């Protein structure tokens, strides 16, 4: 295999995100020739060998009426066999790809994701060391690594291209990384033209490093075959596999036949259209799905299959197929309730779910497959003891179901703009979860044996430890940890390892919450639903989202959105408050006379304005946001003042007959991104510290018990 691979001069030479498409002079001539031939044939792409009719064979659209919902420019027909004994896959596939761009290309760039775990030198493994988050730690047994080897590539019915393959390293020049492979074509594929490639490959299945692999008899296969990158106006967008990012690919039709031991239950993207028992003790399951950009599947003899159906007056029905574990039967209803909540909420807020079916996978314990999304299939994850009310598995189920919309239907580039799906989905998840199930109770887990990685087996729910019923508030602490890390506009794969959760998920959810608080839900929904509608089955960029936000709303959101794309933070505070009798001493003109008024300690008591209240507000963060400041007086009267929030500080003054009780900046909590909400208010005369005594007293009881327990052994 290595003999067939060579490094092309200049491949991955330019640091950056993608290969800027280069055309050799031979390529230009070939392209011109093909255009001539294509023109003579009267149809694009028909004349040259290896070029297939655009779009391949007609199939039913996801909507069931034959209409394609997506460009379907990257379609796969795959045959794969799972060898359970050797933990390997052997596959062959036909890729049908249509060039949607205006420039030709004589290259095809592929992801070979599983090579990220072939050794410790890959980009993924190097980055994972920095963040320490993989499911694999310490020693890795020989049999646990993985690889994906392409055995042959050829034009369908044409030239063998195996010897043209080479590895590329477009992101970090890591010459040891093998997750990006390039195939050179004998002739360029022109705009609108289609090429078909036959590929044969084999792979070693990993013991899960992240998302995919095996545990015991259970398998989950994600990004498991040679997967084409995306050809864009600037060239091929095909990143190395990074530890902190996910995926990006074009839409197409997937027709996949999976041969597995006959006792295995299979779940996959799409619907099963055929099942065939083989004479060797295996069974072949054929699944087909149109208008998706990924195909994932799972197989295990342990799954219990339960089915349900989502029905709604104004949304298409969806068949829900749950593959769960025997010990989680008591949580079946919870999985269905959460999935339906997501389908209803996202469907009514953004747009209907078009596929008609979805598979929910409850992964095996400790397998590392959980909490991940794939088109028409997602993995949730729960524990044997997860009491209702604690938010699990509801939260993760809603989130991954929600990804069918953000990522599945709106197919952003997760390498570069992960926040476009993770952030929008995190925001939507919080909204759905709180509206449907309420704020989850705090869960404390117990019994984690020493030296093990699993969190406690038993759970106790604790009431009274919450975020006040405010969705997304729990994200603030997570965001704050990395608030001054990379600007959000940084391509996601370049985030400092381990910060992607804070920035893509939490920060985005918080600024979307701010938009909702500021503009109102109707306005935000209009932005999101317009974005969803316009970019269904396409690949939007942040600029596309920002453009829609500016277009749809009357408010000037541009400045705010530009702020959140930086690493500037928001932190407003009430710095000081003072309230005192209006100072009247000094020389005062009364009529024609200049009269000296001496200082006084008490108000005159004449019922007129007598107290002056001064509030100093400050901006500690680098970003700005228009603020409201609330004055609350001892008689209950309230005054609201506006402050543009651009200056570093401002003195606000009110004269009123009563003393100031307290002042609050951003009293309605509009700015969800404010890093430290506790400094947003200040009392003129703080009360004695009963709360401090309360919590300290509880803590003291705990400490006494701890000391008793510790000394129990002596």
């Amino acid at each position, binding site marked *: 295999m290595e003999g067939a691979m060579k490094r092309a001069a200049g491949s991955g030479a330019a640091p950056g995100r993608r290969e800027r498409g280069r055309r050799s002079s031979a390529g230009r001539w070939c392209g011109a020739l093909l255009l001539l031939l294509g023109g003579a044939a009267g149809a694009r792409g028909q004349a040259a060998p290896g070029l297939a009719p655009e779009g391949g064979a007609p199939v039913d659209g996801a909507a069931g009426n034959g209409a394609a919902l997506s460009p379907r420019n990257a379609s796969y027909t795959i045959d794969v066999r799972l060898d359970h004994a050797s933990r390997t896959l052997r596959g062959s596939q036909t890729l049908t790809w249509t060039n949607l761009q205006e420039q030709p290309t004589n290259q095809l760039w592929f992801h070979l994701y599983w090579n990220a775990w072939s050794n410790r030198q890959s980009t993924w493994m190097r980055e994972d060391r920095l963040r320490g988050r993989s499911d694999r730690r310490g020693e890795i047994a020989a049999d646990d690594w993985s690889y994906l080897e392409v055995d042959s590539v050829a034009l369908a019915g044409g030239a063998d291209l195996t010897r043209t393959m080479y590895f590329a390293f477009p992101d970090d020049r890591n010459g040891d990384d093998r997750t990006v492979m390039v195939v050179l074509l004998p002739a360029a594929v022109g705009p609108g033209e289609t090429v078909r490639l036959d590929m044969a490959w084999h792979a070693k299945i990993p013991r899960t490093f992240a998302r995919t692999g095996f545990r015991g008899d259970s398998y989950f296969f994600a990004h498991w075959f040679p997967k084409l990158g995306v050809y864009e106006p600037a060239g091929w967008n095909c990143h190395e596999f990074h530890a902190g990012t996910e995926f990006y690919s074009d839409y197409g039709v997937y027709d996949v036949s999976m041969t597995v031991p006959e006792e295995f239950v299979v779940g996959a993207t799409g619907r099963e259209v055929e099942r065939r028992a083989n004479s060797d003790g295996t069974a072949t399951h054929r699944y087909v799905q149109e208008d998706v950009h990924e195909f994932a599947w799972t197989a*295990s003899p342990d799954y219990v299959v339960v089915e349900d159906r989502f029905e709604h007056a104004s949304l298409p029905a969806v068949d829900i197929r749950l593959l769960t574990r025997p010990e989680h039967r008591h949580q079946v209803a919870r999985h269905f309730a959460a999935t339906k909540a997501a389908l209803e909420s996202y469907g009514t807020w953004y747009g209907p779910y078009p596929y008609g079916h979805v598979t929910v996978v409850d992964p095996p314990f400790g397998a590392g497959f959980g909490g991940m999304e794939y088109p028409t299939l997602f993995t949730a994850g729960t524990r044997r003891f997860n009491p209702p009310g604690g938010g699990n598995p509801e939260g993760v189920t809603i989130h991954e179901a929600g990804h069918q919309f953000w990522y599945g239907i709106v197919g952003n580039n997760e390498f570069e703009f992960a926040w476009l799906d993770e952030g929008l989905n995190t925001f939507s998840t919080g909204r759905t979860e709180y509206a449907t199930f309420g704020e989850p109770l705090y869960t*404390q887990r117990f019994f984690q044996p020493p030296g*093990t990685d*699993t969190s406690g087996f038993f759970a106790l729910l604790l009431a009274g430890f919450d975020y006040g019923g405010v969705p997304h508030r*729990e994200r603030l602490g997570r965001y704050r940890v990395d608030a001054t890390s990379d600007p959000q506009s940084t391509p996601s794969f370049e985030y400092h390892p381990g910060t992607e959760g804070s920035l893509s998920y939490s920060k985005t959810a918080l600024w979307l919450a701010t938009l909702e608080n500021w503009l109102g839900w109707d306005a935000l929904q209009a932005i999101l639903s317009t974005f969803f509608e316009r970019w269904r089955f396409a690949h939007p960029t942040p600029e596309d989202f920002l453009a829609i936000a500016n277009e749809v709303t009357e408010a000037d959101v541009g400045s705010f959105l530009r702020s959140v794309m930086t690493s500037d933070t928001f932190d407003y505070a009430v710095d000081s408050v003072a309230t005192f009798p209006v100072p009247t001493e000094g020389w005062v003109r009364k009529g024609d006379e200049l009269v000296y008024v001496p200082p006084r300690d008490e108000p005159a008591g004449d019922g007129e304005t007598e107290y002056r209240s001064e509030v100093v507000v400050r901006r500690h963060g680098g970003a700005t946001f228009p603020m409201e400041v609330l004055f609350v007086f001892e008689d209950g009267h309230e005054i609201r003042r506006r402050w543009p929030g651009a200056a570093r500080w401002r003195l606000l003054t009110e004269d009123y007959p009563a003393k100031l009780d307290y002042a609050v900046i951003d009293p309605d909590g509009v700015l969800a991104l404010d890093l430290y909400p*506790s400094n947003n208010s200040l009392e003129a005369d703080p009360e004695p510290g009963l709360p401090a005594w*309360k919590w300290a007293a509880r803590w003291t009881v705990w400490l006494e018990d701890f000391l008793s327990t510790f000394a129990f*052994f*002596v």
Partner: protein
Amino acid sequence: MVLRSYVTGIRAALAAPKLLAVVWLVLLVAAAPLGVLVQRAIQDDIGGSRVHVELRQRMDMTWLSEFQERHEELGPSVRPATLGRADFLYNLDLLFSGELFAQHPALVAAGSLYALVWLLTLGGVVDRFARGGGRFVLSQFLAACGRYFGRLLRLGALSAVLYWLVYRLARWGYGALEENLQDVTIESTILLYYLLAALPLLVVVGLVMMTFDYARIASVVDEEPNTLKALRRGLSFVLRRPFAVFTLALLVTLSVAALVVLRTVASPGVGESTALGVLAVFLLGQLFLLARLVLRLGFVGSELALYRSLR
């Protein structure tokens, strides 16, 4: 005999209210200064912020995350697990999981300091029970504490070393077990294995604990100042009477477990918002602690009774 010893020990503990009071006061005095420090830290952190309104009714987790960030030394211990009904369970889990040693060095130091104080007190407790009660005279009690502290300290140090070895063994054992179970996909099965693995661990811990418990008793009751001889007496007693020894230990353990369950189930919510309510919750907590001390002293008394009747 075992049951009689158990009852004798509990009765002895209940019949010594002044002793109980001393032991409880020592515990309170050991914890109170740190409690005041926490109170000051919380008060300073709240300052004049209106967040105190929320904190009267519930724990505002937004504020708590800020507090933990601003107080790195206190943050790990000021958390829902230590402020609500999970507190007693959490302490057991801290020890069992090893998180205590890995993440809470300040707590280990505090616990060790208190263990020294407890050892100091223990001599007086055993001596008083051995004398059969009678009028409690503080000076006599303190004299006995001082008299036996040296030998109990040496035994305590040795037991700490052994416990440390047992903990390392447990850590290694569970790590190896986890490695071997990496292809088991059923959580309940894994849990069962872990629980079964806890049994020999409990036996080992129990053996160490019982040996040193009876060694301590022997060092006081038999006036044995030599550490190794006392240890030999303790081990000899345990090996000669394993059923009695472990049955008694089991009885006490179940009593403590029942108390922990009661604490977890019956603990009030966190909504106390008046001074009276705060005081009531605090006193309820002290009641549970007192009950624990009764069981702890009762355990000492019952072991003494068993030792005397069966040695």
